[in-house]
């Protein structure tokens, strides 16, 4: 820790907390999750960055969308994202969330993840190597410092836009049901 760092900590301890304690929700969305266990175990240690896997969305504040997103998975991702507590960050792994990737002409995967949930950063690759994942984590730190990782604020401000897109592909999600049938969380 150098003197600049201590100055930043004193000015805004909440940002210090959010940066160095990114708990990733361990939801394996697609085939890219195969790159996460090497990142978390001894060879490329993610815990020294403060990144730990968490079992439930209520405890995590970073959501990694690894790999392709099929329609069913999109429903689960929306439900998980809605359950997470603010501030939350979404990172898209691989080329499939960016523009469809390898499945660009498939009938069952979505092509642009940004239309359904707000994404803070993308990592290119199929799959990215652990070193790329660590560079992404440090870039996310810089974004949090500059107040640029505001995906959760965008979601709340433009909720109509996101809800319209979600309803277009998944009109039968439980959260769109009538209020007396809606579930908690």
């Amino acid at each position, binding site marked *: 820790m150098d003197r600049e760092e201590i100055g930043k900590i004193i000015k805004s301890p909440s940002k210090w907390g959010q940066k160095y304690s990114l708990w990733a929700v361990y939801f394996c969305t697609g085939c890219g999750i195969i790159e996460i266990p090497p990142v978390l175990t001894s060879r490329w240690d993610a815990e020294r960055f403060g990144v730990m896997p968490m079992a439930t969305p209520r405890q995590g504040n970073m959501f990694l969308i690894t790999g392709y997103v099929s*329609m*069913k998975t999109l*429903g689960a991702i929306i439900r998980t994202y809605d359950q997470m507590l603010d501030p939350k960050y979404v990172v898209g792994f691989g080329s499939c969330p960016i523009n469809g990737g390898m499945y*660009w002409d498939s*009938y*069952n995967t979505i*092509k642009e993840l940004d239309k359904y949930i707000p994404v803070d950063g993308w990592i290119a690759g199929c799959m990215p190597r652990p070193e790329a994942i660590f560079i992404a984590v440090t870039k996310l730190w810089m974004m949090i410092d500059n107040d640029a990782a505001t995906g959760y604020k965008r979601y709340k401000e433009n909720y109509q836009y996101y809800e319209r897109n979600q309803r277009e*592909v*998944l009109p039968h999600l439980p959260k769109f049901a009538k209020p007396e049938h809606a579930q908690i969380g």
Partner: protein
Amino acid sequence: MREQDIKQMVEANFQGSTARVQKKGRIIVTLVKESAPGALIFFKANGFDHLSAISCTDWLKEDEFELVYHLWSYTERIHAMIKTRIPRSSPVAISSIPVFEHAQTYEREIHEMFGVNFEGNPRLIPMFLENWQGPPPMRKDFNTREHVKNAFGMEDNLR
């Protein structure tokens, strides 16, 4: 050799059937569609008690679907493929659940992806597709790029 015995048994018992030994441990049996349930019972009684999968091929030019039942015998280590053809315009087949109970999942998938109706299967509900309104997607005359353009509004891939 056991494969030759099975080949002779099949050709003797089922009218209009041909059996071919592709190599050691692999038999391909082609039947008319009415013989399919009887053939499954026959094979199960002769040691083929594992149904590995049911697969479907879309022969667009011949206007037929081909259903293939993959059976495996643990005792003799022979893989038997039973092929039947059903017409494409009204694809109906008889369910194999009375013979192999787990055929329910494979028939459900073929119903969802190809549109084949299996009579006797109580659970032909969607498995993979959510809120699907188009034609069965694995058919060869289903244009995926057209569908993707309509559903997601994506332009043609610039590659």
